[in-house]
């Protein structure tokens, strides 16, 4: 079987999606047999883009000009461009204060110095290029990552998940943290697929997988309000991983 050629790159991010791949300790030796890690600066040298790729897997959001260049280059060279993780799909944590005056934010950190002034409000990959598929999660589930790779072996991309975290939480027969304990759990609005990881340990969902395929935001606000969280509080939370929530 021909090895699948991969380019794995990180843009503005924490490397968590790439690390998730390296966290597939049991599978790494097998992955090496099926995939050519042709461009993967985090873990493999040298970092040179060569030829075409079966898939480019890109972590992180766009916030600097050189990242745009790299992304366009990867798009041009790859059959599939895959957004890896919530930052790449939705923008992620770095978008937390998008829409505010970025220069002021920059000055809050760097003062008057002109460092890092070329950055712009972080955007998801789809803002610049066509994205063929994505997996969400901050970080993504390693199981999903492995399925994605196994699919690539067959030329297949993952199917979209159409259920929210709540569904999985109920499937696991867990006490609803919102209804039962008045905790601000975002499971209602968040895309499932993590197995309700957090609520199943009694920790409210923070929405790290971004919006579910279909949500009923208005009605959800009412439910949250009945349990003591006003619109502002909920919006503040929703904002954590996805600027589009506020549209």
């Amino acid at each position, binding site marked *: *079987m021909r090895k699948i050629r991969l380019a794995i790159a990180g843009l503005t991010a924490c490397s968590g999606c790439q690390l998730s791949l390296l966290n597939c300790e049991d*599978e790494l030796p*097998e*992955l090496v047999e*099926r995939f050519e890690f042709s461009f993967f600066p985090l873990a493999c040298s040298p970092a040179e883009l060569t030829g075409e790729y079966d898939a480019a897997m890109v972590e992180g959001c766009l916030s600097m000009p050189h990242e745009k260049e790299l992304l366009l280059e990867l798009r041009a060279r790859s059959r599939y461009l895959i957004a890896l993780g919530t930052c790449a799909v939705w923008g992620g944590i770095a978008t937390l204060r998008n829409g505010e005056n970025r220069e002021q934010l920059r000055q809050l950190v760097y003062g008057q110095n002109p460092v890092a002034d070329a950055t712009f409000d972080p955007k998801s990959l789809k803002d610049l290029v066509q994205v063929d598929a994505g997996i969400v999660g901050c970080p993504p589930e390693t199981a999903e990552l*492995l*399925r994605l*790779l*196994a*699919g690539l*072996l*067959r030329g*297949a991309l993952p*199917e*979209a998940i*159409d*259920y*929210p975290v*709540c*569904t999985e939480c*109920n*499937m*696991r*027969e*867990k*006490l*609803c943290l*919102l*209804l*039962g304990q008045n905790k601000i759990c975002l*499971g*209602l609005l968040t895309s499932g697929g993590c197995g309700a990881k957090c609520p199943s340990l*009694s920790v409210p969902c923070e929405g790290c997988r971004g919006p*579910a*395929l*279909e*949500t*009923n935001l208005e*009605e*959800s606000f*009412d*439910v949250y309000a009945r349990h003591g969280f006003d619109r502002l509080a909920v919006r503040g939370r929703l904002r954590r991983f996805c600027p589009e929530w506020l549209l």
Partner: protein
Amino acid sequence: MVARFLEISNLKALLNLLRQRGPVHGPLRGADGVVRFASLTRGVLPDLSASRTMLPPKKYLLYPRERILTYTDHEGYRVPAEPGLPLILFGVHPCDLAGVNYLDKIFLGDDPDPLYSARRARLILVGSSCIPDRFCSCHASPSPLQALSDLFLHTVDGGFILTSESACGDELLARMQSVLEECTMDVPEDTRRFFGSTDAVPVIAEPEATGPEWQECADHCLGCGACSVCCPTCSCFDVLEFGGLDGCSAERVRQWDNCLFKGHAQVAGGLSFRKDRAERFRYRYWHKYGGFGPLRDVVSCVGCGRCRVACPTGIDLRQLAGQLDKGGK
């Protein structure tokens, strides 16, 4: 029908005897207050007074997410082996028994589902009577479904009357002679032994194509999926296939689905046959009160009340049925 009396103090002993046949599961209240069917290990008594468990017995027959086929280039598709241990489900309310009856109609028959039938064959059902609460509508269900069990416990003063309902039940009763007494009482009527009483109102309104009720329900629906996850008769499933990293193996998985999700009726290219939530809501209603295909006219709502309890916005299908009924007249 054989009937025997069990003194309440003998319940533990009875469970011990049952355990000789296999693991016993029954309703248990967790530290978080949630009642679930769970393993009744030695010395643990079921919570027979709880109105309902969070998930119905279907979780033992169709797992929320399970592998239904494996594939290797060498052997093709195979049904994974299903361990043959019997499982005794203790304290199942009549509505849930009827729920199992409905699932049987879908998954058994001439061409049974391999995994379901293997699990069903080893499942021993011990029913128990209960007192409906304000969410229940079992007593008013016009469903032709039956609350079939192997043994049934009727709660009476000081204990239970056990009746055997199947050959397996006969055998169990025989085994448990040591803790049972001859029964001198009549089997009481009011312990809701049977799901669906005769004075039920069988009229279920045909859902009008349009109407404010639908839109109202749809507006409240969050699409969280809780209602169908907890429904004893909801059995829609999605099927996914995952290839192995070796490139030559695969597994096929089915997982519970929900007709209120956008993807439920969506086909390739994005076309959906039930685009808006009101349409999907009508679909759900139809399934519960009308039925599809071979199970047309089988009302599949067994009245357990779970969806009403689970819905974060309090949508009540039963109430909707009532409204539509009035509208229809």
